[in-house]
């Protein structure tokens, strides 16, 4: 009977393994696409196998005792209960093993901490719940800076439409990096602690307000590499992915040049004459992207946590106060960040116009990018 049960169990186990293999599941750490990530993978597998060997020995002895030394087999207990030799042996041997592993890990860690001689520097700043990337160096007027946030539609999250291939791992604008270059990251945060992790680069570093952390990578292969925030950072911690697009040097240069042109154009847009309809149209999309996570798409907020905008004192009150809370954040509630540092004047103007006229607020007010500039100048 026990053998029959055992055979059935093994059969079930084998079927399970086969199913797992067929499903093409990822069950192990990635080797990644950098020299460092390959070293880390090697280290991981080394410790894993050391643990497996120790496990086989220890559980083997235990299993042998369980089978052979059971009372029902007539086993009589021995009475040894001490042996200085054996005890010294199994203190010293494991100590040597862990020291050996630590020695091996030392060299990888040393390389990971070598931030010198980088070819370029990218600044990464965590926000609730998106990332801001800036390419440092060069002319400040055309410094490329942009936000990268979740691109998966809310309908997919709520199960109203089918989930896409890169569900929750897709962003509106990825971080674009060149391959074959040592890229230094400086990492910080504007609000709470986040953590920037891309498994295939073996880079994980906390983004901490008030502290600038360093890390670096050197990507060997072009491709798209996806990661996520790995430090609990509030409500949408699960919804701030990271996408790195690694391009060959020439393509990267073309992309960066185009981005610089875009930066200059945005400055010009600020001066343009905006109509109510244009602002409302842009405002709706900018609102959904930047504000709806807390204030909700219909402006109703979440009772007790995030105030409603529909019929609110802010949206129906003086325009200056509305601009103030968007630009400078709330003095009473840290969850309302200072968006002056995050959004363009165009986006802020459009959002404020939208908030003052949507959901039956109907104030008829139009706030233009120039109004925001004037407000900032007056501050």
């Amino acid at each position, binding site marked *: 009977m026990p053998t029959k049960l055992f055979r059935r169990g093994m059969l079930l186990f084998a079927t399970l393994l086969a199913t797992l293999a067929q499903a093409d599941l990822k069950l192990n750490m990635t080797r990644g696409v950098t020299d460092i990530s390959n070293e880390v993978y090697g280290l*991981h597998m080394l410790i894993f196998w050391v643990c497996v060997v120790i496990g086989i020995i220890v559980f083997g002895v235990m299993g042998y005792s369980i089978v052979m030394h059971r009372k029902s087999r007539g086993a009589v207990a021995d009475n040894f*209960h001490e042996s200085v030799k054996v005890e010294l042996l199994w203190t010293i041997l494991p100590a040597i093993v862990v020291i050996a592993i630590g020695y091996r890990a030392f060299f990888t860690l040393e390389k990971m901490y070598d931030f010198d001689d980088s070819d370029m520097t990218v600044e990464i700043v965590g926000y609730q719940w998106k990332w801001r990337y800036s390419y440092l160096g060069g002319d400040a007027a055309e410094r490329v800076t942009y936000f990268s946030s979740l691109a998966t539609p809310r309908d997919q999250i709520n199960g109203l439409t089918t989930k896409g291939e890169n569900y*929750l791992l897709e962003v509106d604008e990825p971080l674009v990096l060149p391959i074959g270059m040592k890229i230094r990251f400086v990492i910080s945060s504007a609000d709470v602690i986040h953590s920037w992790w891309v498994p295939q680069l073996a880079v994980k570093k906390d983004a901490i307000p008030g502290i600038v952390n360093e890390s670096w990578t050197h990507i060997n292969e072009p491709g798209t590499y996806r990661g996520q925030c790995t430090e609990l950072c509030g409500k949408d911690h699960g919804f701030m992915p990271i996408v790195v697009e690694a391009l060959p040097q020439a393509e990267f240069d073309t992309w960066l040049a185009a981005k610089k042109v875009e930066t200059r154009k945005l400055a010009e847009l600020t001066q343009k004459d905006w109509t109510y309809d244009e602002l409302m149209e842009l405002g709706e999309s900018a609102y959904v992207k930047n504000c709806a996570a807390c204030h909700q798409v219909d402006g109703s907020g979440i009772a007790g946590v995030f105030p409603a905008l529909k019929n609110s004192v802010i949206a129906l009150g003086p325009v200056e106060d509305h601009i103030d809370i968007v630009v400078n954040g709330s003095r009473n509630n840290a969850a309302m960040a200072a968006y002056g540092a995050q959004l363009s004047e165009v986006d802020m103007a459009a959002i404020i116009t939208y908030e003052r006229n949507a959901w039956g607020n109907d104030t008829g007010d139009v706030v233009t990018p120039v109004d925001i500039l004037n407000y900032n100048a007056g501050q």
Partner: protein
Amino acid sequence: MTTTTDHHDHDHEHHGPAKGLTRWIYTTNHKDIGTLYLWFSFAMFFLGGLFAMVIRAELFQPGLQLIQPEFFNQMTTMHGLIMVFGAVMPAFVGLANWMIPMMIGAPDMALPRMNNLSFWILPFAFAMLTSTLFMTGGAPNFGWTFYAPLSTTYAPPSVTYFIFAIHLMGASSIMGAINVIATILNMRAPGMTWMKLPLFVWTWLITAFLLIAVMPVLAGVVTMMLMDIHFGTSFFNAAGGGSPVLFQHLFWFFGHPEVYIMILPAFGIVSAIIPTFARKKLFGYSSMVYATSSIALLSFIVWAHHMFTVGIPFAGELFFMAATMLIAVPTGVKVFNWVTTMFRGSLTFETPMLFSIAFVVLFSIGGFSGLMLAVAPADFQYHDTYFVVAHFHYVLVPGAIFSIMASVYYWLPKWSGRMYNETLGKTHFWLSFVGVNVTFFPQHFVGLAGMPRRIPDYSVQFADINMISSMGAFLFGASQLLFLFVVIHTIVAGKKAPAKPWEGAEGLEWEVASPAPYHTFTTPPKID
């Protein structure tokens, strides 16, 4: 060993417990207080378990189905807090109350009134903590590690209640620890020398010192939060010159010894049960004592291994990596000793033994993943993923909680005077064993494949494994209802148990009648 229990059995009547509810409110009897602690812990185990079921139900499939992210975060936070401070710690204090006086031949705990206070604080602390679920803004939602500034500047208003609840729990733990130390130092029966102490007593003594050392640090850190939130200080606020990283150093200086507080008494329990059912003396008693002390000392110098990714300097990474890996040595010694105790014994497999063997195997697996996590460069890939979730659940569920279940089956005959039903006990064991492994083993894989922890929704590649994990969790959760049934069934309808129901058991607790009389060892036993 001889005892004089016969002498005071007949005046038992005069010293019996009071009747009704006041017995439990005013009691200073270590057995009553032990019982209160154990039932309280059992209740919290179900409450924390309920939260875990909500979490696993939401994670059953990708997408948001049942709850919204802000409530999900409240669930993970409350699950962790309730399980750590409400289920595991009070269970061990309950076991200490019941067993330590009986194991060392003392009539009661050294400080019985404080004992009463330290228990009765707890229901209020947890009522306060749980009530935050019904407050505007919701319960604490920043994880059981409550990292600032998410738990200060960005916290819901209920954080103040959380802070006071932690203060109360800390006060309770410190009083419990003082009591344990005072009892063990002063009230051992004549002849109960240090190296004759049962290992459960030794491990609890060391645990109590850990508690006294680190609970004040926790009290300090939550007080600093309180100041930051309400009185304009900036301990953890970068904008005011403070540092969020300071919070983590303080928290983990408490937090790492805290995890040993939850495992050292388990070592003691397993060291009592395995020799009983192997019918063979514990191998390497003195090395067990030294190993436990080494683990406790090392626990103070490894805290920053929880912080490898915060950007501590290279030298710091090396130091904390090395110190952490060293812990594997004394921990290994303990595992080798248990296995050698079983080797060439005469083994039987009653429920307490099954839980203890599972403890050794599954705790070792948790230890292996702990060794992997200690390697700093690899930790950059593991940190804050489900690999870590799998790791600490392996040491806490089939570690700490299995040891508590083992001790309930082992000592319930002594507490209640009745035997549990062996078939039901074994059924409970196998269901729990399968449930726990199906829940947590696959989480290693999903973590290595890149799933971060504390997320309410995940990408579709992780769907299969999460579904398996959730099914395991439901099985494990449901089988604990069987545990509750077994315990009640034993108390109500179990067969009468003899004074020493286990053939191979040793120790003073088996020399008194079952159920243990209300007062034991009013005259100290003689110990050869």
